[in-house]
């Protein structure tokens, strides 16, 4: 971890209140390019809320968010996507009526000029389809490319979630509980997939399943009641007294 480079993601004194209830309190986090950061914390700790502020779905009450040194605190979500930010959702958010290939294609289209083309049918963009099939191959779903999302299993949907974000070749990838609700076999699968993400992509992952997630992480941030309790190298955070308190006290 080099500290001299501009951080991929920098959060400074972030606060978020939901009608008086604080969900994020004085959070400051730095994630270096290429880093693998795990965010842990009990239910309701404010992990997803933090993601929603990084993506711009929620505006923070106060504080600053920077992507590669650029202040994006007030930037619209779609503009942040064009700066190289992608995410997955804790609650699966796919285009259910459409095929898997179409889902991935929308991920590709979002960053291309072609998204404004009002004449040419999406189905005729052969290069996008080829790429969508390739990305589905990364999650072993190419054989289901032309099936609608409603036809596939929960575990397969989780994989499409990740594939759609990976299709965008993001610089910063936010994974919100990618292992939630998966069987042991499927977890191993996703773990392998996340481990295979190239180093050009900085990964920030929220996950409850420590057995799987800790192996993927280099650094860990522990959130509790919206505050950063411990933050640092993985082994140091695990060994920290305060980590035990939060998890034993829960």
């Amino acid at each position, binding site marked *: 971890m080099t500290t001299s480079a501009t951080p991929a993601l920098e959060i400074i004194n972030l606060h978020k209140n939901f009608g008086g209830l604080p969900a994020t309190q004085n959070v400051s986090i730095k994630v270096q390019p290429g880093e693998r950061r795990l965010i842990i914390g009990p239910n309701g700790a404010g992990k997803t809320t933090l993601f929603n502020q990084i*993506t*711009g*779905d929620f505006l923070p009450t106060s504080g600053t968010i920077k992507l590669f040194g650029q202040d994006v605190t007030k930037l*619209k*979500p*779609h503009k942040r*996507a*064009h700066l190289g930010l*992608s*995410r997955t*959702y804790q609650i699966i*958010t*796919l*285009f*259910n*009526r*459409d095929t898997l290939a*179409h889902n991935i*294609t*929308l*991920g590709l*289209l*979002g*960053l291309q000029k*072609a*998204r*404004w*083309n*009002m*004449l*040419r*049918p*999406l*189905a*005729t*963009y*052969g290069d996008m*389809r*080829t790429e969508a*099939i*390739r990305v589905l*191959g*990364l999650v*072993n779903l*190419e054989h289901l490319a*032309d099936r609608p999302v409603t036809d596939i299993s929960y575990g397969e949907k989780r994989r499409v979630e990740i594939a*759609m974000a990976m299709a*965008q070749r993001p610089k910063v990838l936010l994974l919100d509980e990618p292992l939630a609700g998966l069987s042991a076999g499927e977890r191993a699968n996703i773990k*392998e997939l996340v481990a*295979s993400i190239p180093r050009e992509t900085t990964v920030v992952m929220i996950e409850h399943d420590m057995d799987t997630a800790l192996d993927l992480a280099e650094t860990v941030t522990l959130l509790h009641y919206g505050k950063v309790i411990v933050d640092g190298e993985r082994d140091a955070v695990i060994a920290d007294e305060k980590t035990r308190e939060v998890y034993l006290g829960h």
Partner: protein
Amino acid sequence: MTDVTDNTTIAAPPVERRNSGLRIALYAALGILLVALPLFSGDFYINLASQILIAAIFALSLNLLVGYGGLSSLGHASFLGLSAYFAAWFFTRGGLDHTSAALVALLGTTIVAGFFGLIALRASGLGFLMITLALSQVLWGVAFRWASVTNGDNGLSGMTRPMPFGIDLNGPAAFYWFSLVIFGISFVLMAIFTESAFGSALRGTRDQPRRMAALGFDVWLIRWITFVYAGFWGAVAGLLYVYYHKYIHPTSLSITASAEGLLSVIAGGSGTLGGPVVGSILVVMLKNYASAYVERWNMLLGIVFLVIVIFMPEGLVPGTKRLWKRFTGGAK
């Protein structure tokens, strides 16, 4: 895992399947029937068909918002009415010729749609519905009250039909064919729009707006462009409407007019191209037949609508397809 599939499996199959021979034959037969209609029908039916075509363009344009954008509007008659008023006023009082009046109507209405979109798209869902309703009520009120310009409750009369390329459109058949050509162009251009990359993005914003924004799509701008485009086609319908009736009255701006369009879209099947057309056939026919026998034809329309929504909640076109598939699929 990184092993990539070979390119032979990559050709997109759905497009090919759609263009099966039977379908093409069916569409060709339908096309011939539509063109030949005046040769075997009386004036009453020819005029009815013209009204259906105009209503269908209107419903198709509304469907861009409702069906493809997930934005239910109860104010779409604004654009039909406004365009009709613009054309009638500039032709009968403003001293413009037909071509200029038509251009002013289309351009003026589209610009107004741009402003209305700015206001209405501050919300989505019910908020959007209420704002579109409110805006159309304002126009309706202006048409009623600003009598020095709009002639108020008497409406604007004295409009004539244009003579494109010197062709007289005063006969029912000539006007029907004229409407059919405009309908054909409208249908094809709106179909291209919905099938396009932009159209796919639009449907994405209907189904998962938050995800679309996270993927890099400007959800607001996609909706606004669609709103303006729908307003433009509403204006085209309005132009035909005022040519057909040679007259325009504030009721064309009323909530009833907007609701009829929405009913056509939902009854026929929103988010499909055939749905709004079938819905318009139903609504215009009911209006013309039922009003002769039943005083409150709106009530009849309501009942028919309820029956459709109960038995085919997705609308007549998708519903019939579903039943057809069940019959033919169940047999094998």
